[in-house]
């Protein structure tokens, strides 16, 4: 469908394309910076002018994963020589890795990362499965005050998290859910559920009800029709919703900050807490950030078509 265009318009088009490419590069530069800083030697992380080209190294990641302490005196060359390469890197940086007996002591990062994974995955599974069946219910059955109920469902998402966090904190302390995985899973589920219902309702509405009706007429019960026909059709929608819920739960900060301390603390409140003392080691922060952003970036790419649809879906439908 190429409309006949004048050369002036074609030139303008070319200018637009070039500028969007440039803007994209500018937009991505912060990500480039955090990505490269994650591989920089500490000495190059804060140079003037900023260092762009360098020999990448994985020392920041070693630091990220281990517990270390500042060296206050010169280290023993014999110990240095006997140390594995990654420990030498740490020595080179003026620190030493803590050990419990002979074992290297790891930092809390892996644990926090794992917490994030557990909480995000479980809450996503619950939110999406509940959201899917509820969306199906709303999509297929009439209900008195349906519009109001749907608005109610959506409105719970509009609440500022801090507003809910205060009473939740008080309630949780009564039942002992503060700083537990379950506590955070429930919160994220509640937060994502409304979104999941809304998004899935859109997808469900798009699945022609004729499919299930055909199955009903063909001698299947409504539930069988739902599992055999509707669910397979809704798979892309479910995937998109799941990714969204996962990303939201994965990235959430405010609740995690207020409701967790140790056991269930997730990565978002943890990573900034690693800004450390004395002098910030930005390479460690960057490597922690890098690892943390990686899954989302991969997700975004792998599922970009669904994401685009998901983001705009609710908005367009309303």
């Amino acid at each position, binding site marked *: *469908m*190429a*409309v*006949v*265009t*004048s050369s002036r318009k074609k030139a303008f088009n070319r200018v637009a394309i070039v500028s969007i490419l440039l803007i994209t590069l500018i937009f991505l530069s912060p990500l480039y910076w955090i990505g490269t800083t994650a591989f920089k030697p500490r000495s190059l992380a804060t140079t003037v002018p900023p260092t762009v080209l360098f020999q990448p190294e994985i020392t920041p990641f070693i630091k990220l994963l281990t517990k270390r302490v500042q060296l206050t005196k010169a280290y023993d060359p014999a110990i240095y020589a006997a140390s594995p390469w990654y420990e030498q890197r740490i020595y080179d940086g003026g620190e030493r890795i803590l050990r419990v007996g002979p074992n290297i002591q790891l930092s809390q990062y892996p644990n926090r990362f794992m917490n994030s994974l557990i909480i995000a995955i479980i809450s996503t599974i619950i939110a999406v499965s509940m959201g899917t069946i509820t969306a199906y219910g709303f999509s297929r059955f009439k209900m008195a005050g349906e519009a109001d109920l749907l608005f109610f469902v959506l409105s719970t998402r509009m609440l500022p998290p801090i507003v809910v966090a205060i009473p939740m904190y008080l309630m949780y302390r009564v039942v002992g859910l503060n700083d537990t995985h379950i506590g955070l899973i429930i919160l994220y589920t509640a937060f994502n559920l409304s979104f999941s219902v809304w998004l899935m309702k859109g997808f469900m509405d798009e699945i022609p009800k004729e499919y299930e009706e055909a199955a009903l007429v063909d001698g299947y019960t409504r539930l069988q029709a739902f599992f055999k026909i509707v669910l397979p059709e809704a798979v892309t929608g479910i995937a998109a919703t799941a990714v969204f819920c996962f990303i939201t739960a994965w990235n959430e900060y405010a609740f995690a900050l207020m409701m967790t301390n140790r056991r269930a603390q997730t990565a978002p409140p943890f990573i900034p807490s690693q800004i450390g003392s004395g002098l910030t080691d930005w390479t460690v922060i960057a490597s922690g950030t890098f690892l943390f952003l990686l899954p989302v970036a991969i997700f975004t790419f792998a599922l970009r078509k669904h994401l685009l649809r998901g983001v705009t879906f609710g908005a367009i439908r309303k």
Partner: protein
Amino acid sequence: MAEIILRDIEKYFGAVYVIRKLNLTIKHREFVVLLGPSGCGKTTTLRAVAGLEDVDSGDILIDGKPVQQLEAGDRDIAFVFQLFALYPHLTAYENIAFPLRATSESKASVEAKVRAVAKSLQIEHLLGKRPSALAGGDMQRVAIGRALVRRPKAMLMDEPMGALDAKLREEMRTELKRLHLENESTTVYVTHDQVEAMSLADRIAIMNEGVLQQVGTPDDVYHRPANLFVAQFVGSPVMNIAAANVKADGSRSLLALGKGAAPFEFPKSLIRHLSDAKANDLTVGIRPEGVLVSQTETAGYVPVTAHLIEPLGAYDIVDLKVGAQLVRARTASGYVSKVGARVWARLDPAQTHFFDTRTTDSLRIRLVDGAH
């Protein structure tokens, strides 16, 4: 008011042709319909004329001037889109006024022109409404109004009735034709509906798979189809098509549809038109009204059974079983009483078309019904 000439137009998408070597001249004030199934290239052709589509080679001339480098707005043609393409946020008035305002005409002149067009289309009372508040036919009228208000050299219409229901389409057909008579603007009209094409066109250009099949008056394409495609595309119910062979038999030719079926009688002249090869491998086409049916045994008629009857009110369509072949006939309402009934049938030689089986082209044999 303009003459449009398409000369060797070609357009392809990758290796696939959308339009192939298309040559067509649309005369001043003529109403030409581009007819064909979806994907035949008719819309692309129309859009190429409008400047909404580039062509890969060939010339488009409007009033003798090549226009293919001109943007749509500079060609001075109007276009009516299939889904009307009314601006949804503007009222009918603003829609019609849009092309005038876009070129900064004075307010008074815009007002006068819009009112005049609205009056001729009898939509004055709708001018304040938005498209969403209009019925299909009214949207159609507004879209035409927007096209007419500029007094363009030519009107191009892309299935403008595709979105209307059957009854309304019938009405709009008449209106559109009257409008053309009054405005005398050169019009190119695209449709896949042969009834529309037949009823509206001065000339019909039938396209298939990017290739122009036949250009002619409605009578031409109905009664003298250039090939099997045209023959089957025009007319409803569809023309009966069957493989046949012809044998000389004394003073007559005998035409059999398949082996073992009772042959139909044809004038002797038929066999003379045919080479031996053709006589044994021929495709005949006959419209249902060309299949003559008799309730009683009649000379020159062969016995057949009624396989299916479709009563359409004014007339019936009866599927007759001729050997293994089904042939549809058009009879008076209730003429064949019931399915399974035995009747007699004959093919009217004057209405029988003969096609080359391989090329599907018409053999251009015209017979007169000399027998009876």
